[in-house]
């Protein structure tokens, strides 16, 4: 670095990034296949109680052992991946769509819409994210649907803020002025010119956000505020196993590892997309 004139902000070259993203995509693809094929792959019914085999350690018959009522942990981890994957999608898409729409309007038109949005943004970020979502779910009542609802109510502002910042720079660019001069209506300009140019960083953010959503979903399941037992969900499984962790560590260990691996898939993909964005490549 001694004689480099301006140490680049730069990040690793494309060659070093692509393998990481490939790893990320294969993790995500792997989980998708496992989730879809869970009924075929799972050796046992995830809810089948087997009192004779309760708390049995990992073995050839039960790869991840069994829990306190003899349910097969491996089968439950597989079936839980359906819930957790769905949770990621359902927790990211609504805030993404709502936030992007409001961010586009707020950034492009400015004025009253923008002022109102910015006040709502300031107010929302005044609350610790997790606490606000938790309080809303607690008041509405525990459950996955209310969790998604609370997440949407709180989460859209980050997307809107990000899109708004993008739109503020795009709005002044020559191609937008050209489109305006040619008499295109604002709706067409927003949909065909602003949105495609603003969406890249939003997608990268959404992929990273999926990690947060997944962890929040599992945490809510753990606290008893999200997915409700006996539904197999990783957080719920960990909560179930907590009381037995001294004798039967496997009940908690495997759902946690599953959550980490899915999280890694999203996080690495989000990181890779973010780096591509910063180098100006459209994803």
């Amino acid at each position, binding site marked *: 670095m001694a004689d480099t004139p301006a140490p*680049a902000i730069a990040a690793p070259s494309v060659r070093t990034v692509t393998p990481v993203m490939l790893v990320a995509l294969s993790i995500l693809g792997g989980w998708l296949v496992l989730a879809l094929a869970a009924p075929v792959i799972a050796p046992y019914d995830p809810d089948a109680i087997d009192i004779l085999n309760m708390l049995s350690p990992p073995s050839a018959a039960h790869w991840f052992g069994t829990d306190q009522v003899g349910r097969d942990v491996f089968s439950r981890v597989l079936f839980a991946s359906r819930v957790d994957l769905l949770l990621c999608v359902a927790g990211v898409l609504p805030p993404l769509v709502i936030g992007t729409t409001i961010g586009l309007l707020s950034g492009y038109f400015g004025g009253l819409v923008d002022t109102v949005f910015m006040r709502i943004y300031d107010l929302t970020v005044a609350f610790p994210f997790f606490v606000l979502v938790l309080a809303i779910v607690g008041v509405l009542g525990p459950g996955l649907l209310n969790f998604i609802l609370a997440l949407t109510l709180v989460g859209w502002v980050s997307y809107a803020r990000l899109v708004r910042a993008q739109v503020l720079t795009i709005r002044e660019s020559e191609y937008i002025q050209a489109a305006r001069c040619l008499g295109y209506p604002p709706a067409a300009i927003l949909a065909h010119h602003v949105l495609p140019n603003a969406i890249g960083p939003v997608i990268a953010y959404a992929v990273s956000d999926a990690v947060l959503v997944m*962890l929040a979903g599992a945490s809510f399941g753990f606290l008893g505020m999200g997915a409700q037992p006996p539904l197999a969900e990783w957080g719920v499984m960990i909560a179930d196993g907590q009381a037995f962790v001294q004798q039967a560590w496997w009940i908690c260990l495997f759902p946690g590892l599953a959550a980490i691996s899915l999280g890694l898939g999203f996080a690495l993909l989000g990181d890779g997309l973010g780096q591509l964005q910063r180098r100006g490549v459209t994803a």
Partner: protein
Amino acid sequence: MPLLQLLVRRLLQLIGVLAGISLVTFLLVHMAPGDPARLLAGERASAETVAAIRSQYGLDLPLWRQFLTYLANLLSGDIGLSLRFQRPVIQLIEQFMWPTLFLTAYVLCLAIPPTVALAILGARRPGGIADQIIRLVGIAGLTIPVFWLGIMMSRFFGVSLGWFPVSGYGVGFTGHLHHLFLPAVSTAIWLVPVLTQSLRAALIEKTAADFVTAARAQGATERQIFWQTMLPNAVLPTLNLLGVMVAFMIGGAVIVETVYAVPGLGTLMVNALLGRDYYVVQGLTLVFAVSTVLITLTVDLLTAFIDPRVRL
């Protein structure tokens, strides 16, 4: 006096945000399904009792009147009454806040040194091997569920090795240190990656700054530039991180305290949620939000005080 102007403007903003926070926490309880009067009166109360309670608490008044009453109560320091404990929420908070404050300070002490070290290490050679490793490990650290890590650590270090207690708060300063070690480490493991990423970015931004180029043109060695020019400029971003930390740590505390049965505000919150003790939830949400806002404001003012260029 620009600093005074700044102060006045921020205080005016603060009033707006505080008013907003009280509105949100007020509406929060009103979103609850069911009749609040029925909740106050209890499951088996007669219709007359419920009606009496409704008028006693002003629940039959229009919503805006109720909000004004709520605001007036807040201003006089009354943030509600716990249905379950039959005690003012403020008293509960006073009772439960010490473990949380202790834990927060503990986490800060554990998290800041590795954050600063790792961020410097990464920023010295952006894109270098150390930087790559720190980034990837950081990403991995972010994906670990805190509650799972807590359970696994208490199983291993607490039960198997017997080094640390797995629950409670302990007695005396060293007792607190001992009892809260695992909770603090669990939180720090998850906090350090977040902080390292933003501090690293701030440091790298400095490497492209004009004053670095100027120092280099004047013939300073890279070592001198790093320690004498870049590092002092990284103090402010670190300070700003503290503001960001607070919101994260409050969220983390809720989960970590539950896992380790620490009698703090997080445990109070979760129990209130599960017991549908809405006024405790409301009061805690309010207190958490107000503390976040006040700490952010303090950090911003400190930043402006230290660095006259900052104007926001």
